[in-house]
């Protein structure tokens, strides 16, 4: 079984809760996390990522509002029985690439420079 992970970049202008929300939505929407799978407890994920518990709680609230997860007192947060299946892994990758290119444009970098940066990153 492949271990699913989430990553937060604290220097990224996107708020940490939104970074997490997007990654978890991708994991659920692409079927990596199946309906009924349990998400980590808020405090566990908070200490592992060195973030405030409120940040993780907000992520879970946003996911619940969008129908990805269900929270139950005492039962933790689980993937909803029928989450929105908006993203295949390819679609999620395309969205991530679009977001990356948009950020590169903000930094004044061309698409070629952005691709070159990706190639350099894959070599390290």
């Amino acid at each position, binding site marked *: 079984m492949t271990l699913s992970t989430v990553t937060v970049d604290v220097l990224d202008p996107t708020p940490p809760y939104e970074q997490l929300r997007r990654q978890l939505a991708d994991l659920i929407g692409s079927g990596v996390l199946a309906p009924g799978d349990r998400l980590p407890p808020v405090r566990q*994920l908070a200490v592992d990522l060195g973030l405030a518990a409120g940040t993780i709680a907000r992520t879970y609230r946003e996911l619940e509002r969008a129908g990805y997860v269900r929270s139950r007192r005492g039962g933790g947060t689980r993937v909803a029985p029928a989450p929105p299946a908006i993203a295949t892994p390819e679609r999620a990758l395309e969205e991530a690439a679009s977001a990356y290119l948009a950020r590169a444009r903000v930094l004044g970098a061309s698409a070629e420079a952005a691709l070159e940066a990706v190639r350099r990153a894959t070599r390290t």
Partner: protein
Amino acid sequence: MGFLVLAVPVAVVGLVVALLRRVVVTVGVNEHSGAVQIARHTRRWRVVGLLLGGVAAVLLLTLGQRVDALGRATALAPTVLGVGVLLGTIAGELTARPSVGIRRSAAVETRTLRAILPRGRAVVLAVSTTLLGGALAIGAAWGSADDLGRAGRVLSERCTVVDPELGVVLVGGSRGPWPGSFYALPLVVALLALAGLVALALRAIVTRPRPELDSRGLDTMLRCWSVGNVLTAATVTVLGTLGPVALLMVGALSGMRCDAGVAQTLVAWTAAVVGPLATGAAFGLLAGLVLTPTIRVDDLPRALPGDPAPVGAPVR
């Protein structure tokens, strides 16, 4: 004295087993630095707790009679030792913080106690606790007040015997100290407090933050070791209490003047077997608590034949 003669071999066997089965995991100098840091930190705190608990237990054993001449303070020595280890473990796990960088990753997983619980040690603790609970319950049920009215401190007997000269004679008396409610109540309160600390320690171990994701396997092993140490500390306390309790039972039951019933005979024989075993096992497990698994950092790799030596002639 015979009691100790039986207990010592068991303790020696425990020490030898702890020495032979000691786990040492070797990692490279630049590998798993976060996990190694956490391992050292938690180990340091646990050793401090063990030392402080040990000193407090020895003080209770030697000076406890001054606090309470009837031995109730002395009886708490094993519990104090266990409390020391557990407090050290809790402090270490709660203050262990892996360094976090700008990019932080975490596994989407739910950590549970069940996944890191050493089943064998949990069973040993459960059996020991059941035996101690049974011994204290029997002690409380059969105990009587002593001549000064202290409830549950002696074992009283009363029966009629046929004397060849005097005929039917009423025989009665009391033997003590007996582990009745007089001793059982403080012990139960102390052991309940210990159980609370065990729960806190297990929670602290499960909720401790993970170091880098590459060290996930090593980190899970560290948690498993820590849970094992917590269970061992609790077992040492329970067995260290059970041994003397069984000894007191044997002492009181073996000198009775009335004919012992089936239940009393059964309890006396069971206590005679369990007492030395429990005391010896407590000392043996204590050795295991000192010689806990550890991580060794292999920071001086050996030169291979043909490798250029930094100074002098090459190694051949």
